[in-house]
């Protein structure tokens, strides 16, 4: 995938957090997401959206992120917690 601009990366991370694929960044430490968590979140979103699970913010994935949609998250906190625990 062509290298992402910082802005695209930020938009992607915000989007993944907003719709339940990534936990919001730690408000205290402000710790950023680990690369592994990000890859896992992208794959989960690609699977939910019926895309190839490449784990990177490729064109198809960025395109789907721009598609009009419902505001509600796709995964609930519990789904995500289960995902983290399984990890």
């Amino acid at each position, binding site marked *: 995938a062509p290298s992402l601009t910082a802005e695209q990366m930020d938009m992607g991370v915000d989007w993944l957090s907003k719709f339940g694929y990534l936990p919001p960044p730690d408000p205290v430490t402000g710790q950023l997401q680990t690369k592994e968590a990000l890859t896992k979140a992208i794959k989960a979103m690609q699977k939910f959206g019926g895309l190839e699970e490449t784990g990177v913010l490729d064109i198809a994935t960025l395109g789907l992120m721009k598609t009009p*949609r*419902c505001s509600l998250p796709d995964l609930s906190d519990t789904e995500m917690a289960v995902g983290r625990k399984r990890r």
Partner: protein
Amino acid sequence: ALTPQNKWTKRHLSWRIRTYPKESSLLGRDTVRALMYYALKVWSDISPLNFHEVAGNDADIQIDFTKADHNDGYPFDGPGGTVAHAFFPGERFTAGDTHFDDDEAWTFRSPESHGMDLFAVAVHEFGHAIGLAHTSAIESIMRPYYQGPVGDPLKYNLPYEDKVRVWQLYGVRDSVSHTVRPDDPSQTADSPVLLDLPENRSTVQPARDSPDRCTSHFDAVAHIRGEAFFFKGKYFWRLTREKHLVSLHPAQIHRFWRGLPINLDSVDAVYERPGDHKIIFFKGLQYWIFKDTNVEEGYPRPISDFGLPMEGVDAAFVWLHNDKTYFFKDNHYWRYDDHLRRMDLGYPKDSTLWKGVPAQLDDVMRWSDGSSYFFKGKEYWRVVGSDMEVEAGYPRSIGKDWLLCSEMQSDSPATDTNNTAETRLHGQHHADHAKEGEVCSCTS
């Protein structure tokens, strides 16, 4: 898919549109209301849930068109992006509430390029409002991404995937589904139609034998979902919640109230049942129960089901004061409990107990002002609140106070004076649109 967030314990859910799309919206209020009605009907047709529209602030499903940050934790983001959301059932105050982004161009029966199909998004959001979460299933209406218009609301068929998930939550609907079967064209022609957009509105000329509202005695009068219906012969007039006559010309009962026998030439009494808000029509020794505008299976039935004598019913209404249903016949009345489905003991009583009310009534109804209105001939009497005595200054003229008739006016087409009811209705002096059938409104 997510585990179901929650589900409603009750089966009768009320809804209300609290704020409509902005003035510049392509869609008029009646179209928005009709689309909400049909989007909810998609779910009630296949589940034991029943939805009814209310006017007050305590609706279970409050519907808003709003924008940007509207203080619910899900700010909208202008055109595109997030377009709507709804809250799952549960204890929260916002449970069931549904918000549409007013920055979107909401459309109906338009190509995808023209904007966002309101019916498709509403079906999705009401899926959340009854407890369904997003799913990745390609066919499902509960996919998080907007998939474009889903076609005619009257022919829409919910994907099987979504039906199964609703059945898992609420079980199946015990009576015949009310969804119009798409392969049955005869039904689609007859279902209560959605409002057509102005450029292709169909106008049905009033039949020649339609009665004159200013000189008629009425067979029945009813307060249904906040509106008033005056029935005469095979026709009825309708008034909005604001007491505005929807059209100077009457509509045909059989075209709107679906399932009554075609040879029925009039009705005796009509009322909206408390609790489930179904509508009951009486004629002779029989009655029919309607869910919205469709007769339910298994009707007509004998009025003896209510414990009434097999003499027929002159009038029926629900008294706001005690939520009991009162039936009148000649100079007697009965009190029935629609919640317990049982006639109260000690009835019938003499109708003179309602001081000042005449015998042999045409019908009775309650109105949104909390009073009860008794109709006979061309006159009506008002009884305020929990009184049982007619208010001073009555009777008054039905035509003048309810149906836009002046003292002498008849509604025959010949009277083409500038002072027609239509001009008064709108305050300006312009041609009477009602003749061309242009004054009409269709709500759920």
